[in-house]
């Protein structure tokens, strides 16, 4: 059992550190890269949680699609900005830091105050179970999601479309 814990800790550290790197690194490319690592780590967490399907989706969508998307976005805009020093005023940064930290403290406090027995039998998130659930109880949401993607598509096209012609 300890093995699982170790794996978890590795993944967790990986996730957190690469997430921090996203914040602190200078070169934009590096940042996006470290973001990818974060997503990977998270995917790992999912596997650790026996949520295979979600894990795979995570890898496909985030690592696959989104990272590329962000890279494109980064390229289509200027990357010189990357060399800037993080320009927010110190006061601002400090305030944000304090604020976020307080929030984090409150959250963690809540999380550790959690007094429920975590169930022993791990329910395995296989595709079929998810599929059945999806098409039985959440079909409405599913259809909605379809429309949502369409809307996003239209919006994205309209906004990103070149002004020419």
């Amino acid at each position: 059992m300890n093995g699982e814990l170790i794996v978890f800790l590795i993944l967790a550290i990986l996730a957190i550190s690469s997430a921090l790197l996203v914040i602190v690194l200078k070169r934009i490319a590096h940042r996006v890269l470290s973001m990818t690592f974060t997503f990977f780590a998270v995917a790992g967490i999912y596997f650790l949680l026996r949520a295979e399907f979600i894990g795979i989706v995570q890898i496909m969508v985030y690592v696959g699609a989104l990272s590329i998307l962000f890279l494109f976005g980064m390229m289509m805009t200027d990357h010189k900005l990357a060399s800037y020093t993080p320009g927010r005023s110190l006061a601002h940064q400090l305030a944000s830091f304090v604020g976020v930290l307080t929030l984090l403290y409150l959250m963690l406090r809540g999380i550790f105050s959690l007094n429920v027995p975590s169930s022993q039998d791990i329910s395995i998130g296989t595709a079929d179970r998810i599929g059945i659930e999806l098409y039985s109880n959440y079909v409405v949401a599913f259809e909605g999601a379809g429309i949502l993607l369409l809307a996003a598509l239209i919006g994205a096209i309209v906004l990103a479309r070149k002004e020419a012609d």
Partner: protein
Amino acid sequence: MVPITLYLALAAVLFCIGLYGVLTRRHLVIVLVSVELMLNAVNINLVAFSSIGPFANITGQVFSLFVITVAAAEAAVGLAILIALYRNRKSIDVIKQDLMRW
């Protein structure tokens, strides 16, 4: 067997890192990335609960599926807006985006 609280803690940390990123980074792409981080944190929560939560069931993973979808859509739209903005302002520096104030 890893206690659920650790997963939740991890999620909380990621969430806050994302939030901090949103609040302080100048590069808009990174800001968007940070938002994605927050959503990821949420996902960890959901999946953790759905696997080893007190009332473990599959719903959580379905939920996270939707979250991922939405996150993707949001990212796409976000980047589209980013590009439109870049066309207009020739900059994606957050600090420069203050045509409207007070």
